[in-house]
């Protein structure tokens, strides 16, 4: 794993007699897109509120670049940009006014508001009141407010929540762009697809506990699940069944999802399906399997 920009050790939080988080520990590598995957009520949002100090009463330790972070170290917040839960703004103000308010209390090296609005594609609507914005626009404005002070780490709580397919694609593109600009992004989601498409690393939250950090690369490498996209699904199905190496999991839209008994290389599948026209063979991350395994372990 590359340099750990953030480390969490034994983070716990309870509300009266309900344990929301129990000894959460994981590391976030620098310049990664780190996904916190979990079902609703698994403790993701509670966890996301701890770092920015929205939740005050918790136990555990946080390290930034290996240095212990004091609970009330507000200076460190300059290094973070937060979008916690649904995007909320002063709805009676314009997007620009909202950003001006936040810029005023950000460090002096704040980015230009026009540049940020351009980045999130809201410049043409910047003078409109936020109350007139769609959910997707608010979500993009949420990203804009995260970026206003040019932080090195972005913490995004369910950034794709409530977005339509176009909005999700825009958001994915935006998050990937931010990574290429050198930022580290930590996002929470209950959507496996988000993690598969976006994340370089992830951890799974279940009932306030978490699995160990896993890189997506490693997850794919360890996976025995493949997806075969072909014109002739019937022939391909027959050949795969006869091979006795693969188990058919499902068939959908000319796609066959298969799982191998042992670790197999791409060449083995190609060999079996050599006389069939194949459009694409790709290895699946099998996050659902990982998620289920975490569930069973928790």
């Amino acid at each position, binding site marked *: 794993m590359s340099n750990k920009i953030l480390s969490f050790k034994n983070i716990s939080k309870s509300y009266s007699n309900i344990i929301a988080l129990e000894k959460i520990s994981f590391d976030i590598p620098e310049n990664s897109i780190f996904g916190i995957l979990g079902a609703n009520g698994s403790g993701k949002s509670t966890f996301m*509120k701890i770092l920015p100090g929205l939740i005050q009463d918790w136990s555990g330790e946080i390290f930034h670049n290996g240095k212990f972070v004091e609970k009330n170290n507000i200076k460190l*917040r300059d290094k973070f940009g937060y979008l916690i839960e649904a995007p909320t703004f*002063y709805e009676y103000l314009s997007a620009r006014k909202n950003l001006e308010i*936040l810029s005023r209390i950000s460090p002096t090296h704040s980015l230009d508001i026009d540049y940020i609005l351009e980045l999130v594609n809201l410049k043409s609507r910047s003078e409109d009141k936020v109350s007139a914005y769609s959910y997707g626009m608010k979500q993009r404005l949420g990203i804009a407010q995260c970026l206003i002070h040019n932080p090195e780490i972005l913490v995004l709580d369910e950034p794709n929540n409530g977005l339509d397919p176009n909005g999700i694609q825009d958001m994915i593109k935006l998050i990937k762009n931010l990574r290429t600009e050198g930022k580290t992004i930590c996002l929470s989601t209950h959507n496996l697809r988000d993690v598969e498409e976006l994340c370089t690393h992830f951890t799974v939250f279940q009932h306030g506990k978490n699995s160990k950090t896993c890189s997506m690369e490693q997850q794919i490498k360890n996976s025995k699940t493949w997806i075969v996209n072909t014109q002739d699904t019937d022939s391909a199905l027959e050949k795969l069944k006869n091979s006795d190496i693969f188990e058919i999991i499902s068939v959908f839209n000319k796609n066959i999802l298969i799982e191998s008994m042992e670790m197999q290389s791409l060449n083995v599948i190609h060999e079996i399906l050599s006389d069939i026209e194949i459009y694409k063979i790709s290895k699946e991350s099998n996050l659902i399997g990982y998620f289920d395994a975490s569930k069973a372990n928790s």
Partner: protein
Amino acid sequence: MLAKLIHNELIKVLYKRRTYISFLLITVLIPVIVYAIDYGAVSLQNKIYGQMQDSFIFIGTIINGNLAAYLIIAILITHMPFLSTIIPSEIISGEYSKGTFRLYLTRSITRRAVFFSKVMVVFIYTTIMMFYFFFYSLFIANLMLGPGELIVFHKGVLLLSEDDVVWRFFLGCIFSNLVMLTIAYLCLLFSSFSKNSVTPIISTISIVFVGTAISFIPIDIFELIDPYLFTGYIDIFLLAFYYPVPQEVFIQCLLVCLIWTFLFILVGYLNFSKRDIVE
């Protein structure tokens, strides 16, 4: 940083429509009342000074701008606590309920600074509103009815010359403002506990109501505690027109209001600084 936070809070307040409700009410209501006083001057004079007409001969009318302003303020001052809760009721609870603290408090600012910027804005709003109320009343009343000597009752009839009136309005305004600030900070305290803006208004007005009732009910125990309640000074404005001005009451009012204000702000701050923002 505090100046920047106050700037932000002022923007938030100035762009809200509710900020202007009290100013709109005052602006519209006062000329109407002054007009009504002017229209019914003779009958009003008879009602107010009816008993004295046996002892005094009035030439012309005693109704003038100063008297009209005095009457308007004396009547409306008891309703000002409601107007003074409009901004503080929402200034914290509104941000809880709308979730904007999730934006604001994740910045590199302390909750203490955020809280005190809100305290300052409540001070600015209440003070401007009270000064507007007093001096707009005085201005409109004098504009419509003209200046003149002010006749008030204090140990008999007290005739105050034109020159002796404005500073008394000013003194009354400062101390009435002090009482309204205490009420506004009580509302701010409730706002720090609440998730909506209605509960702080209802809670504050209920306390003012109970406090005022204690001041008016002539029971020994109530008379004993009344001097220590800020609600007992809501009509302190009237004392500014006594001769001589009862300084000891004003000093007592100052101390009582400052102590209550300090307590309200302290408890509000302690709650605000510890509260988890989970909304």
